[in-house]
């Protein structure tokens, strides 16, 4: 059977776009709510723990380059426990895709189309994701190649337009309230790196899996750069207070820019970048989820699962959060940190322990 292969560049794009999408939607608000004008420092601080988390998750995936987590967890801790542990991950994909979709729908509903039902917005995006996942991982990789440049150009464009109004004095005073709010502000961006768990499903399809970890680390570096840039620009354009007050700061920022009497109202750029990013996020998660589930159920093909799964995911995205406030609440450090730490890090820790105990045996069996 023909196996689909992507390259590390595409993996890099996947991860970068995924993280940056959520950064530009929500994150400056989250960090600056705690850290105000020092939000960018929080962004920088988040880099190291995120990288550590990625190493922790990704290294295990690299050790089994041709197996997904569903497969190697069964090898490490036995079929029953292994299946149980990989369920955590499948739930994580569901949670991430549903949350991202919901945020996007909230933005559209708040800022663009207040009367359109949320299920329509989420349904349209999910349908696009269904189509590409149905086509397979390779077309998804080609899509991300095209989308990445558009995405970056649009983001740079919106940054550039906003910079016209930037007043960098708003970033002063630096660290006026000490380190603790900054560290609190760094927690959520770190937690968002849980999105990199997609690696555990995609690495088996990568051409050179040994270099995947490097791609992931580069992507966390660049997406952290994007986070810092956006923090700086949002704070210097809107001010720390307005940035913290706004429901969607980047959106608010780009809406209130005016380059000239004619060149104004450029937020379509950001919203489009956002939509493209969400498309990639939703489809990567849908791919990972359906692939994982098909392996869990022992199916040869993940295609039959895609459509029913997507319907369930949209419904989940609508049901899990009652309103905007719950979405925002979910991203508060004290809410999101325990949930994600448990779902993401607990299974990997178990697997690491099992691996370290079993290692000699596995090496022999490989030879």
């Amino acid at each position, binding site marked *: 059977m023909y196996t689909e292969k992507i390259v590390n560049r595409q993996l890099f794009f996947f991860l970068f776009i995924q993280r940056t999408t959520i950064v530009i939607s929500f994150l400056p608000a989250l960090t600056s709510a705690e850290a105000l004008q020092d939000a960018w420092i929080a962004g920088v601080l988040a880099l190291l723990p995120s990288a550590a988390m990625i190493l922790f998750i990704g290294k295990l995936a690299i050790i089994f380059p041709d197996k997904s987590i569903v497969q190697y967890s069964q090898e490490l801790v036995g079929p029953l426990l292994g299946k149980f542990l990989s369920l955590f991950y499948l739930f994580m994909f569901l949670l991430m895709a549903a949350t991202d979709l919901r945020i996007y729908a909230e933005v559209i509903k708040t800022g663009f189309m207040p009367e359109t039902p949320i299920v329509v917005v989420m349904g*349209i995006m999910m349908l696009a994701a269904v189509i590409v996942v149905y086509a397979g991982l390779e077309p998804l990789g080609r899509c991300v190649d095209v989308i990445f440049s558009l995405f970056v150009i649009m983001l740079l464009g919106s940054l550039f337009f906003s910079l016209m109004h930037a007043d960098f004095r708003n970033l002063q005073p630096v660290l006026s309230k000490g380190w603790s709010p900054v560290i609190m502000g760094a927690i959520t961006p770190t937690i968002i790196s849980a999105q990199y768990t997609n690696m555990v499903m995609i690495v088996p399809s990568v051409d050179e899996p040994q270099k995947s970890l490097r791609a992931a680390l580069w992507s966390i570096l660049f997406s952290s750069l994007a986070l810092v840039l956006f923090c700086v620009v949002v704070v210097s354009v809107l001010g720390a207070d307005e940035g913290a007050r706004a429901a969607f700061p980047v959106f608010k920022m780009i809406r209130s820019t005016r380059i000239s009497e004619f060149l104004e109202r450029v937020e379509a750029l950001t919203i489009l970048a956002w939509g493209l990013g969400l498309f990639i996020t939703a489809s990567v998660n849908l791919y990972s989820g359906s692939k994982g589930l098909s392996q869990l159920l022992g199916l040869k093909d993940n295609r039959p699962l895609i459509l029913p799964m997507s319907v369930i995911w949209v419904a989940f995205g609508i049901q899990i959060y009652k309103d905007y406030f719950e979405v925002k609440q979910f991203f508060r450090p004290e809410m999101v940190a325990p949930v994600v730490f448990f779902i993401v890090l607990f299974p990997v820790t178990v697997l690491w322990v099992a691996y370290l105990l079993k290692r000699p045996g596995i090496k022999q069996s490989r030879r």
Partner: protein
Amino acid sequence: MSSVFTLLKKLSFPFPGKKKKNGNKNKKEKTGQPVDSRDISQREADFKKTALVADVEQNLHRIIEISGNSYDLCIRRCLAGPEEVPCAIVFIDGLVKKDVIDDLLRVVKIDTFKTGIKGVHKQEIYKTLKRRLIPNALEEARDMETLYNGISLGETALLFDGTAKAILCETRGWITRSITEPDAETTIRGPREGFVENIRTNTSLIRRRIRSPNLWMENLHVGSLTRTEVAYAYIKGLVGEEILEELRSRLERIDIDGVLESGYIEEYIRDTPFSLFPTVFRTERPDRVAAAILEGRVAIFTNGTPFVLILPGDFSMFVQAPDDYYEVWPIGSFIRFLRTLAFLVSLFLPGIYVAVLNFHPELLPTTLLLTIQSAREGVPFPVVAEILLMEITFEVLREAGVRMPRAIGSAISIVGALILGEAAFRAGIVSPGVVIIVAFTAIASFSSPSFSLAIAGRLIRFLIIFLGAAFGLLGVQFGFLVLLVHLASMRSFGYPYLAPYGPFIWQDMKDALVRGFWWQMTRRPKLLGFREPLRQRSGQMPRPPRKGDQRGKNDRKGK
């Protein structure tokens, strides 16, 4: 009455079989007349089975029987040699050169009497003529099929009494259109040659451009009745063997009665047959074909049409025009970029217009929105209906313009531009904004160098309008994404359709959205020319002579 009966019978037995044959026999016996009512496939099969015999008259009789003594079939009987061996010349009038036929007759009638030539007796005359006397003898036919194939290509068959074979002589020569610049693909700068309907002329145009012996051309016949010559050309050792293998198998699979245009072939061999987007490129320009072959692609020539197919065809090929390569690179890059943009505009502009005006008026600058709004006052339709009305009007207009005889073509433009555009706008049926949008979209779609890509855009545009009218920019974005996924999932003979954008290939970007310098294009397209990536020596940028430069020294000496 009986004819009605046969008609019914034919209808009930669409495929000829044994039963039918028996029926025919019965008929013959009943009427007593040789009414030949075999069906076409039966006739073809019978014809192929027929072999030549040693008797000229019998052979000729069979030829007449098979071809129904067609009006353009010419048979000249004569006697050859001292023994006056009966022989015949068979050819089809209009396909041959008359003077070559005269030469041939002279050889048969006169040269066989020349002294010193041996073996002009009944048994040997055939061999002698074939070996010695006829300069343009091609091959010999032992059966009717070969013979008829030959004469239908303009060859002449020579039949001799006593030999169950025929000599086929090269006497081709018919009137073809001269080589002119193709109307549909004009350039400002570049060769003025275009393909014609004759396959030999077409292949020669390529051979004249690529003189390497490694330019290989293979051929086959497609079509059970038309027996159209189809040839494919490629550079051996450069093109991927998998592509060739795949092409051969796809071509051989074709089972059709007739091929009148390369479009027939295209539909049989293309990937993703349901897609609106063309995956096989077609052109009338030999320079484009040569360029494609040099990249490692394959060209398919079809007899009877000037349109040559090139495969694999990818998206960026369809927005390239030959001028890009002949003009200086900045303008080449600029117009190519503009063309890609124009294609996107022709797809999305009306949809975006509808979406923005209906859903997101906040995206328009104040003055623009006010102008559009006040221009729209009193227009009785919603924006979607208005734009659909104008788009459909324009599509009809365009079709009428193509179908009209050229003499009244200008009338169409007057009716279209003045009466429909100006009057509809003055009467307040449509607003000027919509007229501008539709006109600009149309111009953008005309700017596409490939008609087959533009027509894909024409249909998709309507889908985007619907999406934009239903969901605003969200719908347009959805349309874009589905389109992107569709394009990204397509391959043409294994070559990704969106390359080099997706998969992103940096080294090929020099010839995608922009056109790099010629001396910069040191590598062939990565996925096509992978057998030998290097195309030319690098570092050929022209520089002023430096010290120690041989060329520079000579220049100075010359001074």
